[in-house]
């Protein structure tokens, strides 16, 4: 864990509203694990005082680089998109409990939208150690990224049917599960997708890890603003998404309606 001024190596669009940010941050790259995130200060400081949590899509201890796929949403991500190679950005990380292989021999990697980024990162990290199968969902072809260089079976679904099959990613997921369940599933994406994956995992008793999102302050576990609900003996308890997560076992997460 360190807070450092990282140099921007690349900042370029890779899909509609999604850009690749590649940084040189050797200290963070050396200690990072799949599914962890970095807490990025908004460049130009100004009125946006809170850092933005962004998952690592890739990290290379050898070259000291981090890569992220970022969706432009509001002022913070807009300012990050405006960075150029050679600029600097203040990052804190790596943060959180990431995805863990736990000896799985065959794993499914399920991502939706910008949530494909950490799942693709985990796939690249674990592909040497287990048989992988990817399930990536997007709004449409223009929004797709993270598909290059995959050598494992890949299932793609888009809302509008412009790439892969039309509909939600759980459709091909269910078919593949019927053909043979893996011993681990990793998922990140919009809440409805995570809920569906959670339900499937619990029904079929398949170990599954979900990466959650919540608004953050410190990113260190100190301020308690990033809470999510987990099961507890007496109903529920709160956990900190930043350091107790962002990855949780599907069995412990409680989604509200």
């Amino acid at each position, binding site marked *: 864990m360190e*807070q450092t001024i990282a140099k921007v190596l690349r900042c370029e669009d890779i899909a509609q509203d999604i850009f690749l940010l590649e940084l040189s941050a050797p200290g963070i790259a050396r200690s990072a694990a799949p599914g962890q995130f970095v807490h990025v200060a908004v460049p130009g400081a*100004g009125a946006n*005082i809170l850092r933005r949590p962004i998952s690592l899509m890739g990290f290379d201890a050898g070259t000291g680089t981090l890569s992220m796929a970022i969706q432009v949403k509001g002022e913070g991500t807009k300012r990050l998109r405006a960075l150029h190679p050679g600029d600097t950005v203040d990052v804190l990380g790596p943060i959180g409990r990431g995805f863990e292989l736990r000896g799985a021999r065959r794993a499914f990697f399920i991502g939706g939208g910008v949530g494909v980024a950490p799942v693709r990162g985990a796939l690249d990290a674990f592909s040497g150690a287990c048989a992988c199968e990817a399930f990536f969902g997007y709004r449409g072809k223009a929004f797709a990224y993270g598909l290059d260089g995959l050598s494992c079976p890949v299932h793609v679904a888009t809302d509008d049917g412009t790439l892969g099959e039309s509909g939600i990613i759980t459709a091909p997921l269910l078919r593949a599960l019927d053909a043979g369940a893996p011993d681990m599933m990793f998922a990140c994406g919009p809440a409805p997708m995570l809920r569906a994956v959670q339900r499937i995992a619990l029904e079929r008793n398949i170990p599954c890890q979900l990466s959650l999102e919540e*608004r*953050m302050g*410190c990113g260190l576990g100190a301020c308690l603003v990033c809470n999510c*609900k987990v099961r507890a003996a007496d109903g529920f308890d709160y956990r900190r998404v930043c350091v107790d997560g962002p990855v949780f076992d599907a069995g412990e997460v409680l989604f509200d309606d």
Partner: protein
Amino acid sequence: MIDLSLDLCGVHLKNPVIAASGTFGFGREYDQLYDISLLGGISVKGLTLKKRLGNPPHRVAETPSGMLNSVGLQNPGVDAFIEEDLPWLLQKDVAVIANMAGSTEEDYCRMAEKLSASGVHMLEMNISCPNVKEGGVAFGVRPESVYAITKAVRACAKKPLMVKLSPNVADIRENALAAQEGGADCISLINTLTGIAVDPRTRRMVLYNNVGGLSGPAVRPVALRMVWQAAQAVRIPVVGMGGIVTGEDAASFMLVGAQAVMVGTANFMDAYACPRIVRELEAYCAQQQVARAQELVGTVRVNG
């Protein structure tokens, strides 16, 4: 060599920079980044008599140069703090200030007794948490109730008692005086200003609790004015906070009458904010040719 140290109600602080309650946990997280013994003190996350889960998400919203929070006093309870967190904190060379919140006089007194029997150096009575009914804010608004609760808790507390004032009041001077008359050893201010955030796209309140507490640079001018007014009204020491990000911000609070300062939201912007502010304050003193930082206190030049 600049002397940054001070004696705050009998407690030695090596410098006037204290981490503000609720932004620094019980110190462990930031200690992964730097030795928290570099700080003058730590005000721990607000404690209640029993464990509290706090509010559902969202608990935070960014606002221009500031943020709203509505954590709702999530904490393990005073007993768990004393048993599980305090021993570690006491190994550090830093003044430990126990921040406490309650919904009844009885709550505050029982906590003050338990904490007085522990190793903490000072108690900070939060009668200003805007985020829960039980946060003591009922005691913090009217000067008469500030006086009454301070008097009652002073009688049960065997450690120096700091009363944390709410800025959401009619006249901060009266509440500062009421705390002093009730027997407070010192006062701290400001807690957060109440506010809300609306998401126009979803037409919803951003915070689950609707209302949250505003902090960060956005509140600094208001906080400075209130610290200035309070410091003029009382004889007891004043600890100032609200939007401090740099050593010069800290110096400004000291110039208007604060003996020490607390740093909250700035920790989220820069995880090293507290030790950086200590260094910057030292550099400021050197540049101003002030040998002891306490010489700054209350020396602001006010216009006719």
